[in-house]
């Protein structure tokens, strides 16, 4: 049996909570997604299979809802709301992303739900939380705006000469991922605690706050030295500029390089540069870390020359076999043809009747014992009868 077998989760969630449900479903929980008639709004987010829009063709929905069951209930209808409450009365966990105040208006607030099910763990995931100035003012947000208000954008972008170029959103959905990670962690904590106390509890997760503790150095430099970080291409933002680490390779793709500072690794790097005919003037093993740091600029210049002669993939494997933390900047789809991913069985194969075939998608981010194969995302209301009875 999978790790979370026997745990029933009711998900009443938009993008802020769908990744949490996907993680739980992957670990064996029975995640019942409650959708409005016509399907959840996230079914309208593309890209779509064959670029034909449709509630059963959203690749976004497939990715974020694999492994769940779907029940359709109209929350505008009091009788159907009562059925939802009856469903939640059988659940271990409720993950909801309703705007603050909406749950109470629907009779789905924790006080009401826990009266019928004291063991319920009720997780509310919202952009800003359940109360506070931004909530009172009705602030609106999107993934990009939350990434700005939460702090990640201050650190992400390009090197610039003079006036700093604009911050760049480092890919989509990460405010949702991060909120969902904290939702998932905290509900598991509450499930663990429930075995001792016999009681569930209410959990308020805010995406902005989740991001604001997911920015590494920027917070530390402010708290300890009232400093600001400067954005840099492909590497850490720091208060001061550091040497570039991302280099263009012969095949037009990039590699991320780092110079090892540990003496033995340094000697291997110098040896490698000698073999490449680029070792002139480099000491074998200067014992002084300051000296190695001083030589760093020269070494990066030589590595840029090496990169220009190799593909990123070649240099990735060469560097790694020498024990360096080098990484090719890969497109995600390169993992479809990767030997390592294949040997580890990382990719999930999921049957999609819409296509009449199985497709590969990223599998579980980590594997627990006895995990069941990932199931496709459900059709709209596919499990309504099965879950609610006739």
């Amino acid at each position, binding site marked *: 049996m999978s*790790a*979370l077998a*026997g*745990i029933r989760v009711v998900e009443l969630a938009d993008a802020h909570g769908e990744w949490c449900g996907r993680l739980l479903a992957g670990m064996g929980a029975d995640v019942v997604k409650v959708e409005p008639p016509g399907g959840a709004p996230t079914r309208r987010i593309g*890209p779509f*299979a*064959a*670029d034909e829009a449709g509630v059963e063709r959203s690749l976004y929905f497939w*990715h974020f809802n694999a492994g769940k069951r779907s029940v359709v209930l109209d929350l505008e209808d009091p009788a159907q709301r009562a059925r939802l409450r009856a469903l939640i009365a059988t659940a271990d966990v409720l993950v909801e992303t309703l705007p603050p105040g909406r749950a109470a208006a629907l009779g789905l607030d924790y006080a009401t739900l826990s009266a019928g099910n004291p063991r319920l763990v009720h997780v509310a995931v919202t952009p800003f939380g359940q109360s*506070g100035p931004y*909530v009172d*003012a009705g602030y*609106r947000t*999107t*993934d*990009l*705006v939350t990434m*700005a208000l939460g702090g990640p954008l201050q*650190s992400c972008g390009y090197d610039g000469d003079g006036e700093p170029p*604009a*911050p760049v959103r480092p*890919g989509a959905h*990460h405010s949702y991922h991060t909120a969902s990670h*904290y939702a998932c*962690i905290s509900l*598991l*904590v509450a499930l*663990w605690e429930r075995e*001792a106390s016999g009681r569930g*509890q209410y959990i308020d*997760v805010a995406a902005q706050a989740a991001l604001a503790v997911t*920015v*590494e150095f920027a*917070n*530390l430099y402010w*708290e*300890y*030295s*009232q400093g600001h970080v400067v954005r840099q291409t*492909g590497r*850490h933002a720091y208060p001061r500029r550091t040497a570039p680490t*991302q280099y263009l390779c012969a095949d037009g793709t990039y590699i991320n390089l*780092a110079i090892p500072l540990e003496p033995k690794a340094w000697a291997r790097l110098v040896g490698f540069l000698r073999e490449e005919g680029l070792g002139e003037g480099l000491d074998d093993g200067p014992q002084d870390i300051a000296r190695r740091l001083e030589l760093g600029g020269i070494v990066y210049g030589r590595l840029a020359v090496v990169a220009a002669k190799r593909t990123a993939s070649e240099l990735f494997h060469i560097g790694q076999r020498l024990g360096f*933390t080098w*990484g*090719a*900047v*890969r*497109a*995600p789809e*390169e*993992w*479809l043809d990767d*030997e390592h991913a294949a040997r580890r069985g*990382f990719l999930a194969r999921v049957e999609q009747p819409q296509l009449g075939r199985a497709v*590969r998608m990223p*599998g579980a*981010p980590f594997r*627990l*014992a006895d995990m069941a194969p990932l199931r496709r995302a459900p059709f709209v209301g596919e499990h309504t009868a099965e879950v609610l009875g006739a």
Partner: protein
Amino acid sequence: MGALTGLRIIDLGWAMAGPQATRILADFGAEVIKVESRARLDMGRVLFGPHVGERGIENSGYFNNFNRNKRGITLNMACEDGRALFARLAAISDGVLENFSSGVMDAWGFGYEGLRRCREDIVYVSMSGFGHSGPYRDYQTFGPTVQAVSGLTYLSGFPDHPPAGWGYSYMDHTGGYMGAIAVLSALIARRRTGRGQHVDLSQVEAAIALTGTALLDYEVNGRASAREGNASAWPPMAPHGVYRCAAPADDPVPDDHWVAIAVEDDDQWQALARATGHPEWTDDARFRAHDARLSHRNQLDPLIEMWTRERTPLDAMRVLQVAGVPAGRVQRSRELFDDDPQLTHRGLFPSVEHPVLGGRRIDGMPATLSRTPAELRRGAPLLGEDNAYVYGQLLGLDADAIAALEAAQVVW
């Protein structure tokens, strides 16, 4: 009483990903015992700052942030007596978590089978870069490597520019979040089955899972991944971007102030045009309808920026939010800590006392549990600060025995 009080976890984590995972468990009350050695100091103590005063081993803000609430012991795993002590500690612990390169634990005799000999139902979570199997199992990573090879870096940046990547180790945080989830799930499974397990977490695989629909779009539609800068193809939005603003009065940084704006629909577009004093924009055929704005976004963005340049990020955000348009200041940590009323309301950055660093604010808990909230008990441990508690109270050694182990560089 914390939610996880009674659980004991051995933390062999170092740098950030491992310590991030166990920090969360400690915040909820687990007894996390961080194992360190003078023979091989955590780079979080030494390399990563900021250090207060001269670089030392007890004054890193980084180390304090990622290791508060934990107990700390010194133990030299390179010697046999050290490993024997570790085995005794494992025997009384619920879980072990580490983020070493693959192979380190096996070399010590504490791969999963070795740990099981210490305690049959132990939960073991390894968090190496590429996992413990497969051809890349010995490859080594840090945050930027994980982000590069997974595809996360590739997806960040403008389409006609190189990848911009991430300006920090997002995957050290997020690998840590996954590690905490793995520990908790395995413990919940153990309660039902009576069995422990080894969770082989690959930070690269965790990162690939966060590349969204990129891989699926290629698999289904044959479409190669593309960077989109600050645009939003899905959901389609325009204007959607990060726009330059004026510097607030007295701000020491003259030229790095921005506001993010995302217009989801025609109503918000009309509201933006009114709020910015440019109702004529909504009559312009290029911008009137959603689809038209999307195809003319390069002509739209400069107009928006003409307006934002005259305002501070805070002013621009307020004007637009009052009008019902999603907009947010690009907040620096200065604003996160000291000028955001919402984060202040949540008390997100509580202060903790550290014997060397004094009272310092740290990254708090963004999930508020109604009955068993996260708690702050102490700053990060000094090197070996809890040796007496762990070796004395938990393992029952007397003071002389501990002193002898210290002299022999076992407790070291």
